């Protein structure tokens, strides 16, 4: 064994014999050598000092021509023009291992003529590149990244993502200001309180008031801007919301305090102003963090669709935008590709997966003359087909627009907080006015009456109310996350707690979605290894199911010849022995007699025309399905089953788990219609599913719950994702929702009781700034503490 030595570029270690020697350097491959020389020539070799001993991936990959990055269609999709006239693209860079890699990429790009800015984020490997398109082209930029041993591909930095980040940053800035100022105001306020009890010169009081005022100003007008805006939009829609209460309370208090500072008597409330804004702003920020918008979901779905199809025109293949494909064009689809247009096959044959549209899990065989439907997937078919509709009228487009409708029609159940805060805000504002007039008319003078009215608003200003929901839902979200239940939006927890009806999909939700052997009838003395090797040849779910119960033989048999028969099974030959594996139809056609009758799927295995083994397969019901249905029904929740499957198998599952309301042979649209009917009756409907055939219903359901192993689109549309696919999690998620909603109610109760106790004091005129500040902090602490208590109880 010769000594091992590290490659100068990638630092992977290999034996010295196989390395390429180049002066004093050793390289593991030409790729590394090339990159090393390129970096030396460019004067970027200080990269190796920076990278240390980190091991890199050797740049051995060959890339296809990068010129397609310069195609106008590509530019149109991914490249934006900045207001100065430069081009901008978002890339994901592959192969970044360490911060030196980031340094190298940025440096190499900066050295390029015409590149204005290259900014790479190490955490998510996303890069923002701005360049002058007159000087350098995108393809050259990507070539450069590839040349130094990385790869880049563009992604569509959708506006949604950008605007969500911007909003988050905006809140972050405002909260920073509010926290900074509020904390300093509180220090100064401590001196004020001390002075209140032990006596303080008026001059000193004024100095402290001015300092507080200076600090409270940015809190009110910068950080508090969000409440002014919210109040304005609320008024525009004729709603009195919490924002209005916060805004008027804080503003009135602020100007009153300024007045006190100038006239040099009474107590200023600057500390209350900054505290109200800070606390409620934090509560609002927590809400913003856990929000998703419907357009995000749609974006994600349409992004998964290719935008171009391969079309055969004049004997040549062209990539043509979907919208430009005409009726009568010949479209080429290869195995593994999505069918994007409707048409009729004119050449080729093969299997298609239509589960997207029908929910039918068996592949469907199609040949010349059969029609293909857009939205389906070619499993192993290479076909040419003549389009019968343009893209706009295709089944796929129809499905997407249906989905769009469903998402937009999703009912928004009004949250308790909104409902409550409207009444609360109105009540407090009225109460405050009444207090003012009450004192004024009793002859206490404008100033005194005004001060007491302000105190009512300040004391009622609901920091705790503002925090009640966000803190509770945060607890709910984290409880879910720990158990593999992802709630996409905090508000869903509350909606889910009000569930009236649960609709369950059958395949993949109540059952495992894969056939499993439930019974076998085997003649003694046949070679199991033969059968194992035979079923291994097929990817058909039935064959896979049979394979599962067989032991893997020592030596797998290699057949001399074998053939897969569509929708029948497999025939194989070994030294003149004929082996048959397949369904009843195959046996009939081969003239074999069998006396086996069952509702289940059957698989026969015959050696030389004699059946030696029979398997019964069934899509097995999940173990806890019955328990789930029972528990739900006990809780008074209606349970129904919706399935695209036929009556017999639907009834079998329904009877076994105890669901009496069953709807079968439903198309995705039928499921949606069933769900809409229930919603129109005023019920809160939860849909549980996993497949694309459920998406319409999932999208419009009050809550769509998706199994984590479900299709990507379904996960995108769903509101709650159960990562472990289990029905136990489903029950758990409902329980968490219930707990959270109870917690919200408790928190409201706490803050309302607090207000009930303190408001009379304020009306009676006994409230000083210290009492206001303490009551505010204390009620907020109680709310947060109560939420923590629930969290602690659950984690035990």
């Amino acid at each position, binding site marked *: 064994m010769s000594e091992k030595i590290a490659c100068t570029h990638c630092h992977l270690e290999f034996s010295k014999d196989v390395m390429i020697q180049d002066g004093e350097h050793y390289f593991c491959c030409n790729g590394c050598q090339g990159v090393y020389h390129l970096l030396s020539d460019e004067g970027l070799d200080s990269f190796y000092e920076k990278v240390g001993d980190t091991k890199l991936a050797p740049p051995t990959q060959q890339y296809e021509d990068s010129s397609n990055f310069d195609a106008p269609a590509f530019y149109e999709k991914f490249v934006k023009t900045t207001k100065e*006239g430069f081009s901008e693209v978002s890339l994901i860079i592959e192969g970044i291992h360490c911060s030196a890699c980031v340094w190298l990429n940025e440096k190499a790009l900066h050295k390029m003529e015409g590149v*204005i800015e290259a900014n790479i984020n190490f955490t998510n490997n996303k890069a923002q590149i701005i360049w002058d398109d007159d000087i350098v082209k995108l393809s050259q930029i990507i070539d450069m990244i590839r040349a130094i041993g990385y790869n880049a591909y563009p992604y569509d930095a959708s506006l949604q993502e950008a605007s969500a980040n911007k909003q988050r940053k905006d809140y972050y*800035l405002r909260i920073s200001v509010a926290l900074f100022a509020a904390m300093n105001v509180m220090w100064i306020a401590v001196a004020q309180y001390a002075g209140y009890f032990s006596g303080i010169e008026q001059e000193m009081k004024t100095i402290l008031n001015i300092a507080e005022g200076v600090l409270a100003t940015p809190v009110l007008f910068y950080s508090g801007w969000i409440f002014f805006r919210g109040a304005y939009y609320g008024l525009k829609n004729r709603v009195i919301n919490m924002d209005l209460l916060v805004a008027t309370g804080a503003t009135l208090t602020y100007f009153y305090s300024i007045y006190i500072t100038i006239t040099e008597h009474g107590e200023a409330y600057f500390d209350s102003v900054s505290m109200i804004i800070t606390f409620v702003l934090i509560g609002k920020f927590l809400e913003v963090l856990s929000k998703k918008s419907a357009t995000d979901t749609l974006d994600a779905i349409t992004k998964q669709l290719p935008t171009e199809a391969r079309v055969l025109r004049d004997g040549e293949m062209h990539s043509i935008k979907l919208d430009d494909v005409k009726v009568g064009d010949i479209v080429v689809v290869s195995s593994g590709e999505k069918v994007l247009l409707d048409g009729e096959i004119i050449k080729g044959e093969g299997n298609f997966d239509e589960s997207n549209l029908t929910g039918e899990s068996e592949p469907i065989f199609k040949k010349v003359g059969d029609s293909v439907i857009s939205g389906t997937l070619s499993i192993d078919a290479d076909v040419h087909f003549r389009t019968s509709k343009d893209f706009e009228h295709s089944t796929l487009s129809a499905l997407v627009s249906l989905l769009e409708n469903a998402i937009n029609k999703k009912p928004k159940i009004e949250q308790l907080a909104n409902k409550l805060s409207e009444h609360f805000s109105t009540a407090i504002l009225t109460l405050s006015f009444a207090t003012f007039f009450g004192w004024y008319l009793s002859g206490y003078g404008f100033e005194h009456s005004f001060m007491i009215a302000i105190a009512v608003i300040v004391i009622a200003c609901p920091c705790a109310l503002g925090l009640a929901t966000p803190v509770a839902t945060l607890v709910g979200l984290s409880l879910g996350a720990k158990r593999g239940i992802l709630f996409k939006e905090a508000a869903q927890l509350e909606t889910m707690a009000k569930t009236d009806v649960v609709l369950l999909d059958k395949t993949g939700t109540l059952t495992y979605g894969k056939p499993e052997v439930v019974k076998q009838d085997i003649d003694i003395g046949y070679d199991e290894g033969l059968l194992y090797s035979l079923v291994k040849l097929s990817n058909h779910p039935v064959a896979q199911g049979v394979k599962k119960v067989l032991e893997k033989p020592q030596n797998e048999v290699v057949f001399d010849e074998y053939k897969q028969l569509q929708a029948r099974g497999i025939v194989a030959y070994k030294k003149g022995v004929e082996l048959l594996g397949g369904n009843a139809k195959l046996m009939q056609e081969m003239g074999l007699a069998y006396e086996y009758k069952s509702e289940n799927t059957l698989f026969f295995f015959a050696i030389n025309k004699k059946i030696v083994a029979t398997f019964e397969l069934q899509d097995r019901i999940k173990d806890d399905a019955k328990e789930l249905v029972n528990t739900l029904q006990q809780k008074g929740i209606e349970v129904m089953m919706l399935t695209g499957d036929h009556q017999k198998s639907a009834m079998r599952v329904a009877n076994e788990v105890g669901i009496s309301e069953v709807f079968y042979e439903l198309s995705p649209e039928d499921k949606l219609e069933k769900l809409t009917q229930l919603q129109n009756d005023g019920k809160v409907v939860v849909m549980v599913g996993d497949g694309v055939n459920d998406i319409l219903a999932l999208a419009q359901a009050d809550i769509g719950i998706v199994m984590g192993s479900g299709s990507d689109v379904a996960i995108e549309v769903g509101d709650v994702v159960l990562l472990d696919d289990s029905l136990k999690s489903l029950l758990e998620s409902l329980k968490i929702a219930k707990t959270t909603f109870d917690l919200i109610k408790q928190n409201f109760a706490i803050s309302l009781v607090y207000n009930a106790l303190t408001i009379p004091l304020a009306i009676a005129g006994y409230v000083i700034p210290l009492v206001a500040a303490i009551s505010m902090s204390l009620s907020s602490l109680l709310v947060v503490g109560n939420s923590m208590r629930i969290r602690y109880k659950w984690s035990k």
Partner: protein
Amino acid sequence: MDNGIVAMMLGASIFLGGVALIAFLWAVKNGQFDDEEKFLNAVKFDGVEDLNDAAMQEKKKEELKKKKQREYKPE
């Protein structure tokens, strides 16, 4: 203690705190905290050479911008 001194001390400390706050806000707006890894590692790549490179890049950017302004007219 004299009231004037208290006023001065309050003023000075609020001012200093304010300066720190503004610096922080600037850094957040500038995206310096967007990528915590890069932010933490930045100190490793802060040599004379890197500074020169950064200055050069800045200059190049300005030049290209000027050039573009002469040529480019957004419609």
